[in-house]
C-alpha cells in the first residue's frame, strides 16, 4: 500500500495519458461520421432522438414511453412515410438518461452532434426540463410526451411542444368530473400529495378547482415522493371523515393510499388519484380494492378523434394490443402522440429540416387518436383535455368527459 505521490510518475502519466488520448481520439473519430445534420434525413431514413429512462427511479415509466415510440415507428413504417416525394423510413435512436436530468441534457447534446435535430421527450418533468433547455440552445425541436410540470412552459422556450395536458390539470380534472357527475356531491375533500414538483403542482391545481366548485378542503398532506407507507397521513385525515380523498401521486404512493386506507378504515365516498389508476399494475396489484377508484388520464380508448396513421383511439388500442399483447396505458399513447406530431409536421412541411419542421409543428392543427392537437405560444396543446377513468370490475373505463362511448360513473363507491 504505497502512500506516496507519483512513485513511477512516468508510467502513471503514461497510463493517464493513453486513457485520455484514446478516449479523445475515439470520440473525435466517431463524431466525424455524423452527417445529414441539415436535412435530418440520412439516406432514406429519418432518425428521431429519444432520451428515455431505462434505469433508475423512472425506469418503469421510461420503458412504457419507449413502447409508445416503438409502436409509432412500426405503424408509420408499415403505412409508409413520404417526405420530399420519396418514401423514407422512420427510426428512433434511444439513449438511457438513467433518470438523471443532467444525463438527459447531455444526451440531447449528443443527439445534436450526430445530427438528430428532432427529439422525442424523455419521461418525467425534471428530465424534460433539462432536455428543453438544451434543445432550445442547440436549435433542435422537441415534442414532449410526458414532462407535465407547468414550470417547463413558463420559460419562453420556442422549440419544445407538449402534446399532453400540464400538471395543474391532472387532479383538478377529477374535481371537475366529480362535481359534474356525482350525486350526492361531496362537500369535503382531503388532498394527499407526494412532495415532488409535478405532484405538488397537480395538488395545487386541485385545491384551486375545489375552491371554485365550493368544496371544503379539510386537509392537504404531503409525504416523501415514492413512499410506500403513507399510513401516518391517512391516520391524520381519518378523523376528518372527508367525502373525497384525492391523491397527487405516482404509482407506488397511489397503491399505498388505497391499500392502507382499507387497512386503516378511511372510507370516503370515493378516491381519486393522478397517474396511478390508469396504470395496469394498479388494478392487478390491488385487485378488488381498486374498485371504483377514479383516475386522471391523458388518454382513454374511448376518446374521440382520429387520424390517418393510427385511426381512432379504439384502433390505436387494437394495434397496441397486437404488438404488445396488452392494452396500452396513457404513457404509451402520449408517447405515440408526440411521435405522431413529428410525422404529421414532416408530412406537412414535406421535409425533415429542423427549422421547417419547427414551423410545421408550431402551425399544427390536426385531429388524432389522441384528440385534437394544436400548440399555443408556450408550446402547450390548447385542445387537450384530461380524461377521468374509473376502475370498474377490474377494468378501467372512461367516465369523463362525457361522450357517447363513456360509461356512467359509479357513485358513491365507498365499501366496508
Amino acid at each position, binding site marked *: 500500500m504505497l502512500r506516496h505521490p507519483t512513485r513511477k510518475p512516468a508510467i502513471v502519466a503514461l497510463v493517464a495519458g493513453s486513457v485520455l488520448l484514446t478516449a479523445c481520439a475515439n470520440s473525435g473519430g466517431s463524431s466525424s461520421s455524423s452527417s445529414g445534420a441539415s436535412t435530418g434525413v440520412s439516406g432514406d431514413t429519418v432518425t428521431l432522438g429519444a432520451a428515455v429512462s431505462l434505469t433508475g427511479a423512472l*425506469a418503469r415509466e421510461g420503458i412504457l414511453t419507449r413502447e409508445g415510440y416503438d409502436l409509432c415507428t412500426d405503424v408509420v413504417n408499415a403505412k409508409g412515410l413520404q417526405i420530399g416525394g420519396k418514401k423514407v423510413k422512420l427510426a428512433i435512436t434511444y439513449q438511457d438518461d438513467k433518470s438523471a436530468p443532467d444525463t438527459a441534457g447531455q444526451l440531447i447534446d449528443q443527439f445534436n452532434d450526430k445530427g438528430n435535430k428532432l427529439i422525442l421527450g424523455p419521461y418525467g418533468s425534471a428530465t424534460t426540463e433539462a432536455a428543453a433547455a438544451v434543445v432550445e440552445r442547440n436549435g433542435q425541436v422537441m415534442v414532449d410526451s410526458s414532462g407535465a410540470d407547468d414550470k417547463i412552459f413558463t420559460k419562453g422556450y420556442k422549440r419544445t411542444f407538449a402534446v399532453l395536458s400540464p400538471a395543474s390539470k391532472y387532479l383538478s380534472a377529477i374535481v371537475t368530473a366529480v362535481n359534474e357527475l356525482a350525486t350526492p356531491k361531496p362537500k369535503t375533500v382531503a388532498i394527499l400529495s407526494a412532495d415532488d414538483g409535478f405532484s405538488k403542482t397537480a395538488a395545487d391545481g386541485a385545491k384551486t378547482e375545489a375552491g371554485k366548485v365550493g368544496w371544503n378542503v379539510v386537509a392537504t398532506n*404531503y409525504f*416523501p415522493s415514492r*413512499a410506500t407507507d403513507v399510513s401516518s397521513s391517512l391516520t391524520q385525515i381519518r378523523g376528518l371523515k372527508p367525502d373525497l380523498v384525492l391523491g397527487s401521486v405516482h404509482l407506488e404512493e397511489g*397503491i399505498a393510499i388505497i391499500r392502507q386506507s382499507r*387497512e386503516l378504515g378511511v372510507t370516503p365516498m370515493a378516491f381519486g388519484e393522478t397517474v396511478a389508476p390508469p396504470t395496469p*399494475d394498479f388494478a392487478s*396489484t390491488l*385487485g*378488488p380494492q381498486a374498485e371504483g377508484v377514479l383516475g386522471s388520464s391523458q388518454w382513454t380508448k374511448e376518446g374521440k378523434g382520429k387520424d390517418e396513421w393510427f385511426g381512432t383511439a379504439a384502433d390505436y388500442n387494437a394495434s397496441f394490443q397486437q404488438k404488445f399483447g396488452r392494452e396500452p396505458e396513457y404513457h404509451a399513447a402520449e408517447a405515440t402522440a408526440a411521435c405522431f406530431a413529428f410525422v404529421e409536421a414532416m408530412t406537412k412541411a414535406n421535409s425533415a429540416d429542423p427549422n421547417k419542421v419547427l414551423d410545421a409543428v408550431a402551425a399544427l392543427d390536426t385531429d388524432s387518436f389522441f384528440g385534437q392537437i394544436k400548440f399555443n405560444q408556450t408550446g402547450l396543446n390548447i385542445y387537450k383535455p384530461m380524461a377521468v377513468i374509473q376502475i370498474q370490475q377490474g377494468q378501467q373505463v372512461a367516465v369523463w368527459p362525457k361522450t357517447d362511448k363513456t360509461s356512467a360513473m359509479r357513485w358513491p363507491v365507498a365499501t366496508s
Partner: protein
Amino acid sequence: MTPFLQATVYGLLQGGLLALVAVGFSLVWGVMNVVNLAHGALAITGAYFSWQLHESLGLDPVLSLVVVLPVMFMVGYVIQRGLINLVVNAPIWMTLLLTFGLEALIVNGLLLAFTGDFRSTRTGYSTNTLALGGVRIPYARLIAFGLSLLLTVALVLFIRNTKMGLAIRATGMDRTAARLMGMNVRHVYAVTFGTATALAAAAGSMIGLVGTFTPVVAGGYTLQSFVIAVLGGLGNMWGALAGGLVLGLATAWGALYLSGTLVNAIAFGILVLVLIVRPSGLLGKPYYEARAEA
C-alpha cells in the same frame, strides 16, 4: 387518542418488518465487518422469488418460505464463499464497492428479468383487518410482524445454542483464535452470509405480502437497515429488533405530529445522533473500537 394508538400500532408493525430486513445486515456487519450494500437487493430478490411461487403455484408467501429460505441461503453462501471472501481483509471501502457492484448487478438483473412493474403478492387475507375499538390491525401485517419475531428468536437460539452459532460468535470476536481452534472460517463466514441472505429473503416475501415492490426500491431497504443496525448495535439481534421498532415508532409519530415529508429526515437524524452519542447502539455495550479518539 385513536390516531395516536393507530399510528403506534402501525409503526410497531412496520418496525417489526423492517427489523427482519435489518437483522441479517446487522449480523453480517457484526461478525465479518462487511457492510453489505446489496442487502436490500437480496431482500427484493426474495420478494420476487416468493411472488413468482405465488403466481405460478399459488403458494402462500408464508408457506413459500419453505422453499425460499433454503434456496436463498445457498445463494448467500455462494456469494460469500466465491466473492466476498476474496476481499474480506481489504480496507473497508473495498467491500463497500464490491457489494455496491453486486447491488447494481442484482437490481438490473431483476429489472431485465421481471421488468420494472410493481408487484404485490395478493392473498385471500390481504385485505382483512382486525378492528380493536378504533384501532385497526391488518392481518397481513400482523403475520409479517409475527414472522419477524419468530425468525429473530430462531436466529438468537441458533447463535446461542448450536455449534455453528458458537463458531459464528467466536469468529466474530477473534478470527485468529477461531481458526486456531480449528474452525473453517471460510465456511463459517459463508454460513453467516447465507443465514443473513435467507432472513433478508424472508423479509422480502413479507414486503410482497403487505405492500408493493419493484427492483429499484432495494436501495431504500438497505438504507433503513443501516439505521436499524446502528440503532440496535452491530451484530446484536435483539438490538436489531428493538432498533426496527424504535425506527417504526419514530417515523410513525414524526409523520403524525410533525410532517409526513420529514420521515426520512427523522430516520437519518436518529442515525447520525446515535453514531455520535452512542456508537454502540441502544442495547450494546460501549464499542470502544468505534472511536478513533477516547
